[in-house]
C-alpha cells in the first residue's frame, strides 16, 4: 500500500488517521492543500485523501491537474450518497465514509491503488511519438496530440507494447483498471477516436486492428529505429 497524505482538519480526519495507523499505512496529516503539495512533491505520498470539509476545492483541482499520476480519494465524515456522486464526478477515484469499517476502508484504498496504471509513471517515447502521462501530454515531434486522458493512456499502452498486439481485455484493464465485460465496445470506440486524431497529424504511425483479438501500434522502421524508450 503506497504512502498517503491526509488533507483535513481535526476532528474530521481523526478516525481515518487512526484506521490508517492500525492498518500500517504510512501517512501524514496536513490541514492545507499547500502542505499536501509539498508532501506529494517530495515523493512521500502516492495517494491524496481529501476530507470533504476541506474548503479550497480550486487548490485541490490544481493539485490533481499537476499530479495526474497520484490517486485522489475523498473522505466523507458523514455518509451521503448524493455528495459521493458529486465527488466521483469531480474526478475522485474513490469516496470513503465514516460508516465503513476499518477493514473495508483499507481494502477500498488498496483496491484504488491497484487500479493505477503501472506504466503511468514515466514518459514513453517511440520514434517521434512521446507520451508523458505525468504531465498529461502526448506529442508527435513538435506537434501536440490533443488527446483525452483515456486516449492518451490507450496510446501509451499500445506504444509500450509495440509491436505486440494487445487484446481488448488487456487494453481495458490497463486503461480503465477493471475487467472488460464481454461485448463492451469502449476500447473500440476510443481507438477509433484516437486513430482519427493520429491520422490528422501523421501517417507514420497507425493503429492496426487484429480482427477478433485487439490492436497494435505500427511505426515504420525509419521513424522508429529503436524500441520503446522510457525516459
Amino acid at each position, binding site marked *: 500500500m503506497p504512502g498517503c497524505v491526509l488533507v483535513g482538519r481535526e476532528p474530521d480526519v481523526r478516525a481515518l488517521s487512526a484506521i490508517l495507523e492500525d492498518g500500517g499505512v504510512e501517512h501524514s496529516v496536513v490541514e492545507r492543500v499547500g502542505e499536501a503539495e509539498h508532501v506529494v512533491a517530495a515523493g512521500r505520498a502516492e495517494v491524496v485523501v481529501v476530507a470533504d470539509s476541506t474548503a479550497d476545492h480550486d487548490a485541490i483541482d490544481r493539485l490533481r491537474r499537476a499530479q495526474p499520476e497520484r490517486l485522489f480519494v475523498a473522505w466523507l465524515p458523514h455518509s451521503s450518497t448524493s455528495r459521493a456522486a458529486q465527488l466521483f464526478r469531480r474526478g475522485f477515484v474513490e469516496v470513503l465514509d465514516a460508516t465503513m469499517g476499518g477493514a473495508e476502508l483499507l481494502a477500498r484504498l488498496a483496491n484504488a491503488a491497484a487500479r493505477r496504471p503501472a506504466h503511468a509513471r514515466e514518459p514513453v517515447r517511440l520514434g517521434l511519438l512521446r507520451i508523458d502521462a505525468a504531465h498529461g501530454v502526448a506529442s508527435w515531434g513538435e506537434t501536440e496530440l490533443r488527446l483525452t486522458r*483515456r486516449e492518451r493512456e490507450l496510446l501509451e499502452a499500445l506504444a509500450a507494447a509495440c509491436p505486440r498486439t494487445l487484446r481488448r481485455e488487456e487494453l481495458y484493464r490497463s486503461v*480503465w*483498471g*477493471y*475487467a*472488460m*465485460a*464481454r*461485448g*463492451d*465496445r*469502449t476500447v*473500440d*470506440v*476510443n481507438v477509433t*477516436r484516437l486513430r482519427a486524431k493520429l491520422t490528422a497529424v501523421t501517417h507514420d504511425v497507425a493503429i492496426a486492428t487484429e480482427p477478433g483479438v485487439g490492436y497494435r501500434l505500427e511505426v515504420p522502421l525509419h521513424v522508429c529505429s529503436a524500441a520503446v524508450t522510457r525516459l
Partner: protein
Amino acid sequence: MRLTLVPQTKEFYGLFAEAGDNALEAAKLVEHRFREHPDTAIRQAQVKTLEHEGDRLTAEIFRLLNTHYVTPFDREDIYGLAGAVDTVVDQIEAASELLDLYRIEAPMEQSLAQCRVLVEATGALAHALSRLRGFRGIDAHLAAIKRCEDEGDRIVRDAIAALFEDEDVSPRAIIRWKDIFEALEQAIDACDTAAHVLGNIVVKNA
C-alpha cells in the same frame, strides 16, 4: 361536448396506424442512437419529440372515444390498445435516456442486438396496427412479435450474464448496463403486451 352517432371508424384506424408508425420510428431512432453512440448526431430530444407525438395520438384516440357513440370495436379494448402502444414509445424513450443519464462511454454489443430486435418488434406491431380494419393478416405479425420477445429474453439473459462473468468488472458498469439492458427488454416486452391486447381484440371481432 358533441356526441355523434355516425360511425367514424376511419379516424380510429388511421390514428392507430399512425401510433404504430410512430413507435417504429422511435425504435429506429434509438437503434441508430445506440449504434453510433457517442458520436451520433441523434439527440435524446428527437426521441422525446416522438414520445410526445405518441402521447398526442393516444389523447386524440381518447378524445374520439369520448365524442363518438359508435366505435369500431369495444371501448375498453380501444383504451387498452391505445395505452399499450403508448407504453411502447414511453419505454423506448426511457431506455434511450439512460445513455445520457449514465454518461455511457460506448455501447455494448448486446444492447445493439436488443435494439435490432426492438425495431423488428415495433415494425411487426406497426404492420399489425395498419391492418386493424377487417382484422385480416394480423396473426402473422403477432407471431413475429412473440418471436422477438423470446429473442429479447434470450439476449437480456446473456447480456446480464456477461456483466457477471468476471468478478472484477466495474460495479458502476454493472449498475449502468443492467439498467439499460432491462429498460430495452421492457420496451420489447411492451410490444408483446400490445400484441396480446391486439390478439384478444382480433379473437373477439374477426
